């Protein structure tokens, strides 16, 4: 703007006048100078050199620059120059002054059209004087096209150069990956892209990984470099879709409609991207991506050509590399197999001599290269196996393929290795002409096998021994013999775990024996002390040489004296538990022992498990024996294999009688089938708990046991333990019986039991309680409400109050009431209830018994009625009851009081007692004597006495005293009960009757004898006279006799009257 204000001429009005002067109007047909000026196909103008103001412009200038003529002429040169070129303009203007007049000048500039378009322009000018002013005529030629064309050429050249460079790069560089990075640098520069990268796809596992990356040089490589290297995963996915199918992926942010993608682009600062796939032999192997961060671009065909060229060459290169890689890999494999492998490969001629040995002979057996060539192959074989191998060689010559078994080969350093060889016959192949021997080292396998065999043998030996001591000794013996040593020892940890003691030893040879004799053994060793103590500490196998002088070896003196030199110690371990160790001693070198050391590897752990088990077994055996409960072990056939003393003692048999017997021998007959069944089925259950079984002792006593058993399937054994529960069982049975009896008793006594928790509304009723109420448990629930219904309405008041208010804990309360049974019957019951408390003396529940006492009640009622009746009868009949308790000599009698109540009197049974005082003094002795006599008569039961009594007023009474005596088995009187009936009235009446009867008898006699005698005499006389007349008796005689008889009759009648009168005089109640 500075220039514009500086050079612009404010009075633009002048321009038209000047114009007119310089170019006067002419007709179109006449070409004037102005016409030439105007029709020039290039823009022409004249400007004031001083002010830079346009003085004249032609039509082409007007058209090209887009200003109107007038407008144009108000402008200066600065107005058509881009602001950034004003410096250049002012420099040019400074030079104008130094130019000669009319001197021609040519230059290249950029100009600005009215519409803002900037275009390159070639200006050619001559200085002129116009209207007297120093001016310059300038012709402008728009060179846009020329420049564009030049640019294109340049671009293409650059592309071609880039292609050439890339190809050169790829061809020269053996590492295509490095070459690729170089190519990316070239491309970035050539195509002006900001990022170029290569993602390789691994056809083996379908992964895709960034392998090469370049960004445009000069780019800020800060965070952007890191971000740019890795494509965001969603974008990569987007790209891989089309490229896997062989298509290019081309995208610009402007065309993106997908919001997510757009965000990805924005996030990556990405404007355009082009991704090309790489296929090798039709397999997708990766992509090359190019990114422009500045502009959205349409990729030029030349650019694409460049990229295609890169892709094509790269594909080719990758294919080539793949092929080479393949070859190399194969070669490497071969090298690994033959030269670097562990197999020994050799070619042997038909005589058995080495023709070729692989480098492994050196690696594995330390025979230097070619030292074996020409030697017989058996020279390195252990003599004992040579014969077999020679035979195998002969066989190999006839057959195509032969294999040897394991044999020993000498290592160059003197040790031995186990080998196995496969011989293949190639004698007829001209390139080989020999037997190819593939030999592999099987030392480890052979050792492992021997080790396993030994471990198995030792563990079996230990496991099968009858006890720990025997097991240790046998195991040690085998170990010593197998490892060819002189002496072996086993040290075990004490049960408390604090010490080690020698548990067993075994010597093989005199030196071992001597060592044992010479050594003074310590009682025990603690951790860290002596060889066993150190093994304990380290829990690792240890080999000590020169034990005769070893500072830590306690028995070194004995070693010196016996000639033992080397010791090996192996810990016996199970889990993390150190159980002890075994020690082996030899008079030989460490190396000799080391030959066997493989045997001990892991042996400590192998033995450890069994050893632990054996130690436990020993402990269990001790428990087995000392247990007071019976234990035994049965075979599956039922025989007793082992039993403890407790079982023998309980059954009262010796151990010899138990072991070997069938278990059923000792089982109660009734329980045998049950057990036999279990034995058949039970072997299927692993553990069988709690069988109650009776066993019979030698004294035929039944004892109860509860047996539990477990099955050891492996050994087909049943391990059984028992508990003698005889006492418990007896108590149980007795309790059960007592219970049954109690129930029975309750049933018989019709005694029901009930209880109710105070917190509950429902009582618990025994069966008998239900029975008393006439219900069954199914049809009646004894809730309080139901309970009230069972009470007789008049007795329900008993249930109104809280029982706690009336009951004293632990004290029985008894009451009687009536119930209404299920059948509507009223029955009397007696309840005895008690309030029970817990330990804290809080009332917890009520319990009680209920008894049907209806019968008793009825009986009591009847008894009362009977008593009443009896009392009344006594009263009516004037009877008095007396009783003598002879045991206590007590006499009880009842008597009626004045108000007709019965009253009892008790006194000693004596003659002087009040009871006898009422007896008439004349009869007292008689009565007492008669009673005593009755009592003394052993069979005397019933008796009766009639005697007189004297009343308190002196009246005489008569009584009949009837009594009955109960006696014991020996006839002694226990009780006498008597009833005294007052017969005074009866007696008096009887007396009267007797008198009357006597009188009547007299009268009757008189009548039938005394009176009738003379009468019958008369009747006989008359009969005689009637039948015989005077021949039998004279009339006078007849009359005299009749007269006598009549007088006699009269006399008798007088007697009768006298008797009658007499009776009247004596009696008073004869009527």
């Amino acid at each position: 703007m500075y220039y514009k204000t500086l050079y612009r001429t404010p009075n633009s009005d002048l321009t038209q006048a000047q114009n007119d002067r310089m170019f006067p109007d002419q007709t179109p047909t006449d070409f004037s100078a102005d016409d030439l000026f105007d029709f020039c196909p290039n823009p022409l103008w004249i400007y004031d050199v001083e002010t830079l103001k346009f003085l004249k412009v032609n039509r082409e200038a007007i058209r090209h620059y887009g200003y109107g003529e007038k407008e144009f002429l108000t402008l200066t040169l600065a107005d058509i120059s881009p602001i950034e070129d004003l410096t250049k303009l002012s420099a040019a203007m400074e030079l104008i002054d130094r130019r000669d007049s009319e001197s021609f000048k040519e230059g290249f500039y950029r100009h600005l059209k009215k519409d803002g378009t900037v275009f390159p322009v070639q200006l050619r000018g001559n200085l002129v004087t116009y209207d007297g002013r120093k001016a310059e005529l300038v012709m402008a030629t728009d060179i846009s096209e020329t420049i564009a064309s030049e640019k294109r050429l340049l671009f293409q050249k650059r592309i071609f150069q880039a292609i050439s460079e890339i190809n050169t790069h790829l061809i020269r560089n053996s590492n295509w990956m490095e070459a690729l990075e170089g190519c990316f640098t070239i491309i970035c520069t050539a195509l002006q892209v900001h990022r170029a990268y290569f993602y390789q796809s691994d056809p083996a596992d379908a992964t895709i990984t960034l392998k090469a990356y370049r960004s445009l040089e000069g780019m800020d490589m800060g965070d952007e470099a890191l971000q740019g290297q890795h494509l965001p995963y969603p974008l990569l996915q987007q790209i891989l879709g089309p490229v896997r199918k062989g298509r290019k992926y081309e995208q610009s942010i402007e065309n993106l409609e997908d919001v997510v993608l757009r965000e990805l682009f924005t996030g990556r600062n990405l404007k355009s991207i082009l991704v090309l796939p790489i296929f090798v032999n039709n397999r997708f192997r990766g992509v090359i991506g190019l990114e422009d961060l500045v502009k959205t671009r349409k990729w030029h065909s030349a650019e694409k050509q460049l990229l295609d060229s890169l892709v094509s060459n790269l594909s080719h290169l990758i294919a080539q590399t793949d092929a080479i890689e393949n070859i190399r890999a194969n070669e490497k494999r071969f090298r690994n197999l033959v030269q670097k492998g562990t197999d020994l490969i050799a070619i042997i001629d038909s005589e058995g001599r080495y023709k070729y040995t692989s480098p492994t002979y050196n690696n594995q057996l330390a025979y230097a290269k070619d030292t074996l060539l020409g030697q017989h192959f058996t020279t390195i074989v252990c003599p004992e196996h040579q014969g077999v191998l020679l035979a195998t060689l002969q066989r190999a010559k006839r057959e195509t393929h032969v294999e040897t078994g394991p044999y020993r080969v000498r290592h160059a350093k003197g040790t031995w290795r186990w080998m196995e060889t496969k011989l293949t016959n190639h004698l007829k192949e001209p390139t080989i002409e020999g037997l190819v021997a593939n030999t592999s080292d099987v030392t480890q396998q052979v050792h492992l096998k021997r080790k396993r065999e030994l471990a198995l043998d030792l563990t079996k030996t230990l496991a099968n021994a009858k006890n720990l001591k025997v097991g240790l000794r046998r195991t040690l013996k085998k170990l010593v013999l197998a490892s060819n040593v002189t002496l072996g020892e086993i040290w075990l940890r004490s049960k408390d775990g604090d010490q080690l003691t020698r548990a067993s030893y075994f010597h093989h040879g005199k030196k071992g024996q001597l060592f044992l004799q010479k050594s003074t053994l310590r009682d025990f060793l603690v951790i860290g002390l002596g060889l066993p103590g150190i093994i304990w500490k380290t829990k690792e196998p240890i080999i000590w040489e020169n034990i005769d002088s070893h500072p830590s070896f306690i028995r070194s003196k004995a070693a010196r004296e016996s000639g033992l030199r080397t010791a090996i110690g192996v810990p016996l371990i199970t889990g993390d538990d150190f159980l002890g160790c075994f020690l082996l001693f030899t008079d030989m070198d460490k190396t000799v022992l080391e030959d066997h050391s493989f045997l001990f590897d892991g042996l400590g752990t192998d033995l450890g498990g069994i050893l632990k088990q054996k130690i436990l077994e020993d402990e269990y055996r001790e428990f087995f024996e000392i247990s007071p409960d019976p234990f035994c072990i049965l075979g599956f056939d039922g025989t007793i294999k082992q039993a403890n003393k407790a079982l023998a003692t309980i059954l009262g048999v010796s151990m010899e009688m138990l072991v070997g017997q069938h278990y059923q021998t000792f089982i109660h007959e009734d329980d045998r089938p049950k057990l036999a069944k279990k034995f058949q089925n039970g072997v299927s259950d692993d553990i069988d708990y709690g069988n109650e079984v009776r066993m019979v002792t030698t004294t035929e006593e039944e004892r109860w046991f509860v047996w539990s058993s477990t099955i050891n399937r492996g050994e087909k054994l049943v391990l059984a333990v028992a508990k003698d529960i005889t006492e418990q069982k007896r108590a149980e049975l007795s309790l059960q019986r007592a219970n049954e009896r109690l129930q029975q008793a309750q049933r018989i006594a019709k005694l029901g039991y009930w209880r109710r928790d105070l917190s509950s509304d429902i009582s618990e009723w025994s069966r008998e309680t239900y029975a008393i109420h006439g219900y069954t448990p199914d049809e009646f629930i004894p809730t309080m409400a139901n309970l009230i219904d069972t009470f007789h309405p008049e007795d329900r008041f008993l249930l109104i109050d809280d029982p706690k208010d009336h009951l004293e804990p632990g004290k029985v309360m008894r009451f009687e009431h009536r119930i209404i049974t299920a059948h509507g019957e009223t029955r009397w019951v007696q309840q005895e209830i008690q309030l029970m408390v817990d330990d804290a003396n809080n009332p917890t529940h009520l319990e009680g018994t209920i008894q049907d006492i209806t019968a008793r009640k009825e009986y009591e009622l009847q008894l009362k009625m009977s008593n009443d009746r009896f009392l009344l009868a006594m009263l009516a009949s004037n009877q008095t009851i007396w009783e003598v308790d002879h045991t206590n000599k007590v006499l009880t009698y009842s008597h009626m009081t004045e108000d007709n109540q019965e009253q009892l009197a008790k006194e000693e049974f004596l003659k002087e007692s009040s009871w006898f005082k009422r007896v008439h003094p004349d009869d007292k002795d008689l009565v007492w004597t008669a009673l005593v006599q009755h009592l003394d008569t052993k069979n005397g039961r019933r008796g009766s006495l009639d005697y007189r009594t004297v009343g308190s007023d002196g009246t005489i009474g008569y009584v009949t005293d009837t009594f009955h005596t109960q006696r014991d088995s020996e006839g002694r009187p226990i009780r006498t009960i008597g009833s005294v009936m007052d017969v005074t009235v009866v007696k008096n009446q009887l007396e009267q009757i007797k008198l009357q009867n006597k009188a009547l008898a007299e009268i009757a006699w008189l009548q039938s004898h005394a009176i009738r005698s003379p009468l019958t005499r008369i009747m006989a006389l008359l009969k005689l006279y009637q039948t015989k007349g005077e021949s039998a008796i004279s009339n006078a005689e007849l009359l005299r006799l009749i007269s006598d008889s009549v007088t006699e009759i009269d006399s008798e009648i007088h007697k009768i009257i006298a008797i009658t009168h007499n009776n009247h005089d004596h009696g008073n109640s004869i009527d």
Partner: protein
Amino acid sequence: MEILLIDDDAITNFVHQNIIESKLPGMPIKIFYNGQTALDHICAHPETKFLVFLDLNMPIMNGWEFLEAIAPKIDTLQVNIHVLTSSIDPRDHQITDAMPFVRSFLEKPLDENVLDRFISDKIDQRE
């Protein structure tokens, strides 16, 4: 056979003797005035068959005492006893009923028709 009349009343004996003699002429008849003399006579002649007419009320040994005395010996003797009394007391009748060897209880005076039956039936039965 001998007929014994045991009665302390002479007139009655006279009348009965007369009735028997007229009914059974020639039949020996002996009269005793108390039971003792009659008992002595019977016991002295165990081989003889006796038809006895016994009065109850007599001195020395009355009829009851006679019966009581003869009872133990009755099986060794051949005697048919008929009580012939003036008593009409049923108790006297009842007592003699209890004595199987007393053939009948007759009231004085003796009926001659009754006598016929005794002679024909009862004495024959005994034999």
